[in-house]
């Protein structure tokens, strides 16, 4: 016989309170490269406040390396691949969302930034813009 399981949110008496502290926040940042990126460069894209729980990340990157070497990760201080790990999205350009298993619902206890870190630097010298949007909540 199968078992119904419940997350804490669905446990008895946890209560639905529509529009009571369920608001969603967003922060967006754009950075246009000024010089060719190199390995281990870090770009601080947006600030994230203490108390925030990150729900989703949208990373939009222009074509920066048609020679297909560039890799980029998205994370935060001390965990540079926490949200997107070694993406090739910057080679041909595109959009990538949070994709690291377990990376959703990260709760921050101190102010931090959401950062793009260069893994392998590009071969080409193409400059371009990267845009990052974070959806988060301040709900406990």
């Amino acid at each position, binding site marked *: 016989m*199968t*078992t*119904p*399981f*419940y*997350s*804490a*949110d*669905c446990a008895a008496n*946890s209560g*639905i309170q*529509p*529009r009571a502290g*369920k*608001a*969603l926040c967003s922060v967006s940042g754009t950075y246009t490269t000024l010089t060719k990126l190199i390995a281990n460069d870090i770009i601080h894209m947006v600030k994230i406040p203490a108390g925030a*729980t990150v*729900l*989703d990340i949208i990373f939009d990157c222009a074509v920066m390396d048609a020679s297909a070497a560039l890799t980029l990760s998205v994370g935060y201080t001390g965990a540079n691949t926490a949200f997107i790990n070694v993406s090739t999205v910057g080679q041909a350009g595109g959009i990538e*969302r*949070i*994709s*690291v*298993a*377990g*990376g*959703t*619902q990260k709760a921050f206890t101190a102010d931090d930034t959401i950062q793009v870190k260069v893994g392998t630097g590009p071969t080409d010298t193409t400059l371009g813009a990267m845009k990052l949007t974070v*959806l988060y*909540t301040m*709900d406990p």
Partner: protein
Amino acid sequence: MATTYYSPDCKAGNNVIPRAGAGLCSVSGQFNIATDGAGVAFVDEDVVQMVKIPAGATVLEIIMDVPPLDSSTGLVWAVGDGDSAERYMTGQTAGRSSAGGIARLGVAGSSQYASYTADDTIDFHITTVASGTAAVTGILKMTVIYTFDA
């Protein structure tokens, strides 16, 4: 000649009022297999009620983050609600081969589902049990983004 089409939201005079009642809501839930599930491996047709969704909500997006659930490649899961177990995601295979993953709302036509006339839950549903070793630890996480706007 190509045609420009308009959704009802974009038709002239259809009152776009920026930030007037246009708020987004979110609800997130986690299920720890080891503690909330007492370390019992999922079996076929198990259901985990992950988050509550209130009457009147319009579901816009669902993000399902799963840990490794199957050492082999048999596991299949879905996401739905009390009326339709596979309303939002079907045939999902993230969690196979000892690797976690993230999946999103993907059933065509399921976005903007707005027929919740009563409170319900958004559920994770095992549709095919693991064929290898099934996980007895790990955390399932779900986030639902929704609105109450008419």
